[in-house]
């Protein structure tokens, strides 16, 4: 299988071609530096992304709380994670970094608050 990847490590955006099957990579070409090899390898085997979205927030002067995955999650699990997050409600006060959904879908990654917000009227 051949995968064409645009590297996002630096603004250059090298176009990298990766060939391989599953977790076995046979060739990587087009990278401008070593960091591109690491990036292309990860992208080929298991693309991961930081997931960010918002959760319903009660008791604050703002209706939604921004949350983020503390670390990247496998991209193919992103929509399943969204289902869990959208079913969640949080109450103020919240501190940045507070765990909102722990170990989401058993992926070993927490969804944490991206903002500190006090109770309405404080």
């Amino acid at each position, binding site marked *: 299988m051949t995968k064409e990847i*645009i590297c*996002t490590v630096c*603004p250059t955006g090298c176009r990298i071609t990766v060939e391989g099957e599953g977790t076995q990579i046979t060739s990587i070409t087009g990278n401008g530096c070593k960091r591109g090899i690491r990036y292309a390898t990860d992208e080929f085997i298991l693309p991961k992304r*930081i997931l960010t*979205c918002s959760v319903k927030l009660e008791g604050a002067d703002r*209706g*939604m709380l921004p949350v983020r995955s503390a670390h990247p999650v496998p991209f193919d699990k992103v929509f399943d994670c*969204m289902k869990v997050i959208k079913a969640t409600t949080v109450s103020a006060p919240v501190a940045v970094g507070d765990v909102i959904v722990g170990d989401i879908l058993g992926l070993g990654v927490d969804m944490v608050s991206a903002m500190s917000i006090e109770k309405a009227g404080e």
Partner: protein
Amino acid sequence: MKQQNCDVLIVGAGPAGLSAACAAKDAGASRVIVLERDKRPGGILQQCIHPGFGLKYFGEELTGPEYAERFIVQAKEKGVEFMMGTMAIDFRENVCVAVNGDGVHAITFGAAVLAMGCRERTRANLVIPGSRPAGIYTAGSAQRLINIYGRNVGKKVVILGSGDIGMIMARRMSLEGAKVEAVVELMPYLAGLTRNRVQCLDDFGIPLLLSHTITEIRGVDRVEGVTVAPVDENKCPIADQAFDIECDTVLLSVGLIPENELSKKAGVALSGITKGANVDSFMQTETPGIFACGNVLHVNDLVDNVSRESELAGRNAALYAAGKLEMKDTLKVVASDGIRYVCPQTARCGQKDVKLFFRVTAPMGVTELTATCNGVQLARRKIQRGNPGEMEFLLIPEVPAAGEIIVTATEK
């Protein structure tokens, strides 16, 4: 009118204002007041819940609110005073007039920093023909509705403009279960960052239609569809190749305009190209004692650069207020071959480590960036790829005593 005095007055508590405030305090300003019309600080970062902030400044990948919070905490620790829900409405010499729930305030300052950010270009600015159905938003408005108010903005979306906000919203809406049919871009190249194209469009299989535009929006009460056509080399739609896309929502991501009404009231001279103030390498406008930084000065791509440039503005504002800013002569900085504009527009002789920020005029491959003065090369850098949507810079070790600084970008 309630009277107050301060050393440094800052308009805007977004990332630019926050960094300027912290730097002003660090530089010894006794009283620093930040005016902010919103109810809490953070500016536009409050709704930018996506990651990609702080990669340069902190070496970490943060979301907008997390980035803002670092500076909000710092500013409060340093004793910066915030007046929230307060709108600055006028400048009279060294007095700023502002309004909030407590009435009208007249704040006398030693120096002021303009950090009001920018607004989005609208459908009215673009003159897109058609009726006026519900479902047309600027990308930032949609972002605010979804991320702060939890509203559902639409189900089937077409996005006009490949600016970063449009691409970010393509991803955001996809994650919320909407179908983003296409991103339509007038130019033959991407307007925003490549990383956003990858993580917002390619990841979700959203087509990017370069050299296309929307020629009509249809629908009476609600958007029902758009007509899209390719454009020729003069950016004119080729009518017989037009096609329709069914949708219920149109997002416009077609440019940001620095919000300078207040700057005009202060008599600050603006650049016709950046739409922001002309500044020197102290980030001072042509009006002594008034400084500018962030998106109100020129639209930035990375908030990390905004923080650095704003630290400079805040620091120099504090020095000015204390009578310690030594103002030597300035040299003109010229945007020459391949360069659309340079900020700052002038540089102070003798100043060290001056960063000149600029954008190239068109996409380029391997490109050499140079800054020369009187035939002497001050700085030179080679980049692999030049893109108008990705701001570049050159570092000048020391500004010469005379001449003009010429900045060029030459494709190799």
